[in-house]
């Protein structure tokens, strides 16, 4: 096997090992490459900054599953952190996946450990089956969820006082591992609420039209957005610590593309030469 063939046929396992090593090094020894803030992320930050802690309550729709990993989890953590710091109350509910309530509980457990009060500062209303239909039902009547995950009556929760329909929330944000079309169709367009979304990096390009048309007031996508948000809040967390490794990962993927193409063109030329002879 000559060099050209070798370049064309590197064992995929070698590629995987190279990737693992390249990612691990900057994770263990961060370099601290500066980053720019995306306007769609800043829009979310500005909305939260503009809320009034005295009266405004925020609704978070937690629709991601653990499978999407930190890429989905860092955005809600960053936003909730900001909400708590500003003293804004929030309520979480899940429509998209049965895993949603568990993901909310992870955040809540941490907050309770730090002394925040369940029921007064936040609440977890659990999972509601029925997809788009459930979203609409909840939007029209928020008390249609009889109890929260801890068995309290929803109408008795201090944080839910004064909430009847979704319009009573000052700001609604969905966190998912996909796109928020269901929310746009069922709630945003017909009821005209302030709505933003936090999703995984993959979904960002398909959300630009909705941001551009004003149906989404802000968009966060994955680790890089969360890192930017953490920087805006002056609280670098897990998102920020991954950005250097993220950079290296991009470079190594580009390197793989180039490597594959070099092999491809060299072998094409050899074949053409052989054919010419």
């Amino acid at each position: 096997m000559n060099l050209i063939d070798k370049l064309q046929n590197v064992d995929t396992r070698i590629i995987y090992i190279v990737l693992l090593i390249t990612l691990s090094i900057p994770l263990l020894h961060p370099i601290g490459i500066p980053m720019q803030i995306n306007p769609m992320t800043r829009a979310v930050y500005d909305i939260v900054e503009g809320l009034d802690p005295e009266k405004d309550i925020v609704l978070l729709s937690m629709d991601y599953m653990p499978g999407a990993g930190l890429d989905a989890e860092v955005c809600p953590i960053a936003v909730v952190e900001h909400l708590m710091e500003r003293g804004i109350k929030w309520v979480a509910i899940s429509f998209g996946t049965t895993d949603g309530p568990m993901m909310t509980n992870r955040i809540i457990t941490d907050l309770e450990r730090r002394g925040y009060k369940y029921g007064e500062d936040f609440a977890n209303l659990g999972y509601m089956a029925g997809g788009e239909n459930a979203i609409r039902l909840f939007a029209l009547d928020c008390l249609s969820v009889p109890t929260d995950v801890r068995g309290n009556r929803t109408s008795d929760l201090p944080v839910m006082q004064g909430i009847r329909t979704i319009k009573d929330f000052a700001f609604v944000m969905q966190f998912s591992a996909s796109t928020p079309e269901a929310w746009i169709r069922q709630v945003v367009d017909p009821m005209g609420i302030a709505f933003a979304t936090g999703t995984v990096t993959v979904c960002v390009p398909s959300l630009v039209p909705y941001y551009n048309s004003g149906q989404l007031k802000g968009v966060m996508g994955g680790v890089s957005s969360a890192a930017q948000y953490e920087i805006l809040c002056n609280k670098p967390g897990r998102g920020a610590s991954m950005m250097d490794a993220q950079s290296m990962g991009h470079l190594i993927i580009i390197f793989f593309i180039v490597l594959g193409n070099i092999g491809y063109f060299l072998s094409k030329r050899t074949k053409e030469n052989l054919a010419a002879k």
Partner: protein
Amino acid sequence: MQISTNIWQWISVACIFGMWSLPLYKDNPFYRVCQNIFVGSCAGHAIGIAVGNMVKYGFQPVIQQSQLHLIIPIVLGILLYARFFPSVAWLSRWSVAFLVGVGVGQAIYSSLRSQVINQAVAAMTKFPGETLGTTVNNLISIIGLLAVLTYFLFTIPQTRFVKGFSQLGRWLMMVTFGVGFGNVVSGRLSVLLGELLKIFQDWLGLI
């Protein structure tokens, strides 16, 4: 470095390595065990949540608040399982018909309103724009939109103009897909990075 002494951390890392053993090594019994535990636990979790919802939104309101009309969906829900008994399997069509009806009813008008009309309105921009830059961008946006839509016209005669214009649409779609791929790379890397971070931080205590 301080390796975790928490048994759960060790189990969790074993699970991760189990799933990784397929690409990093090859198909092996450890991977198979992990994969089957995975499928089983997902299904089990779904059963629990489903039963919870049945009771909370179905049985409890019927019994405690005597909302008797909820007996109808409970019957429809049970009929879904009729398919496992060949002689009455056709009854499950009723429940499917109900679910499809709600799905279609929700999608049909809203997709027209949110995805067609609202997007078409957002595409109507002013010419010339405030700066040369915006004018050029708006021009690319609107021509690109029309070109891609033309590509998806299936039944009109393929004249040279139509063919050329839809080829332009194809190129624009390739840019769209390229952007999509570029974003996916960072997304997928983030998931792997998150796992590595957990391994280094929570298990090995390196960071």
